[in-house]
């Protein structure tokens, strides 16, 4: 299991667009990808679950990847999050 913490940089939080970019990207990996936010665990492969969690701008989240391709999944997700998830 590998994980990394991030601060959400997107102005409107993880709403539709950035959530979609993230979900679409991590869905391709075999590993489970979870966002831990305020002690809640959210399936990062589901856009609706991410939106439903209302993760706001400036929040701290932890991305946890577990499975055969966990390193690759985390690396890819890190790159996307740090470059603003398409925003």
């Amino acid at each position, binding site marked *: 299991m590998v994980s990394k913490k991030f601060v959400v940089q997107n102005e*409107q939080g993880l709403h539709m667009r950035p959530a979609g970019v993230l979900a679409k990207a991590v869905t391709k990996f075999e590993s489970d990808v979870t966002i831990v936010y305020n002690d809640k665990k959210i399936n990062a492969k589901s856009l609706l679950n991410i939106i439903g969690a209302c993760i706001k701008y*400036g929040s701290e989240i932890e991305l946890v990847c577990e499975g055969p391709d966990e390193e690759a999944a985390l690396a890819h997700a890190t790159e996307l999050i740090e470059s603003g998830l398409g925003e």
Partner: protein
Amino acid sequence: MYKGIGASAGIGIGKVVIIKEQELNYTKTTITDKDAEKKRLADAIDVFVEKTTALAESMKVTAGEAEAEILQGHIMMIQDPAISEQIEQKIDEESINAEAAVEEACDFFAMIFSMAEDELTQQRASDLGDIKTRLIKILLGVEETDIGAAPAGTIFVAEDLTPSMTAGFVPENIEGVLTEIGGKTSHSAIICRSMEIPAVLSIPEITTIVKDGDIVVLDGSTGEVYINPEESVLEEYKAKRDAYLEAKAALAKFVGKPSQTADGHVVELVCNIGGPDEAPGVLERDGEGVGLFRTEFLFMDSDSIPSEESQFEAYKTVAETLEGKPVIIRTLDIGGDKALPYLGLPTEENPFLGFRAVRFCLKRIDDIYKPQLRALLRASAYGKIRIMVPLVTCVDELRAVKAIIEDLKAELDAEGIAYDKDIKVGVMMETAAASLIADILAEEADFFSIGTNDLTGYTMAADRGNPDVAYLYSTYNPAVLRSIRNIIAAANKEGIMAGMCGEAAADPLMIPLLLAFGLNEFSVSATSVLQARKTMSLWTMDECKALAEEAMSLKTEAEVKALLEERARS
């Protein structure tokens, strides 16, 4: 006359076409062949994706990229594992028909979203409603109404405008929109504004009050709606509409043009913002930068001191969004009048003359001021940030802030963190004291920005919110005008930028005076940019100077105001 929420400016005059939600007639039934039902579902989703993709493409043209994205969002949502798995599971476990399964799953998620705290997430609930309706129509084989077929001069009336409805809009044919629900931030409002279609939302029962073919006049700014009005009302609004469209076209000419007088004297025209979410609006409205970025939002939206990190992200975002255009960020300007218990601000008898802004920050250096200044310095590596100090009354305060900044620069150097080594530090000129020592401050500040709102209040010793004395609160008072002129002159003498971020910068009566005084930078609200640019273009510098000379020889506020109004140009 009916009144709703004016959600998209403009006057709409036309004939009603009611968009009715068709009854979706189906019942929840038990099915026997689960695989067949799941195949029906999968096929319907394929059709949904295909149709929605086509709609999104056509929307890019009629409404723009951002609006078309709403439809792309629908595609992502229906393909989301959370929802698709739930629908299939219902078919498997409950043996119900696809229509019922879709309805239940969509309603479930819609309910979760509608209970969220923020508006943006709540709006996703209506997205799910739209997806549900359209997917079920596909399953039932029901045809969508052809919105594109509406004739020219149409006023659409509906309960709510769904993104798929608006995808069918032919904007040239649509004079206006009326709905029963919605507000300024709902889909309908956003789409209408980007298509520049006047809209009034939130008129209960409007779909039953009007009938197809009725003549409607609507005012998308005031929210007023007239149904089958008398000839006189109709004529009145036709004239208003013509005036509105003419004014709009006149302003459109100024997009992308330099901000200058008729004889080519160029100034900077920038915007005031209260948070990172307003930054894109600056560029959309053709602002040339940010003249005041108020940072209080970070502290207001929090129940503890915002971390350096979260502040850094906010400042960096704005610096990057503005793509190298200047961004003047004002350090924390807050006092006891705002109830923020975590800050430990005292309850005072005179909060506006009290422990606030820079005075407060200089006594809270370690836990409040340094984190903010460090965040600003770090963010300065990502754009063109300038730091501005609020409520300065003596040069000691400016020196103290600059000393802290020098210490932080040394810290960052030691840590190997990048920042703008030449970052400019300026003063917000908003007190009588600052105005009187403007020459002293100009020697040590990199720029001035005049906050006319507070400058007027402090100079006239009057509270604009107090009805008994509000009459004294006027920028046209000779005392205030002399302060402004003095401040700008001191800046010009030292060769530093003289800017203004108060309301007076956008005032067409003040603009010629400010130009005459030598103001270099005007910071206004994003929606005022084009109008301010237009006003400037109507005056030559000589004309401005002549007007200023006359105005400054007058002795009362009333005389000044009367003169400026008489000579006003628009």
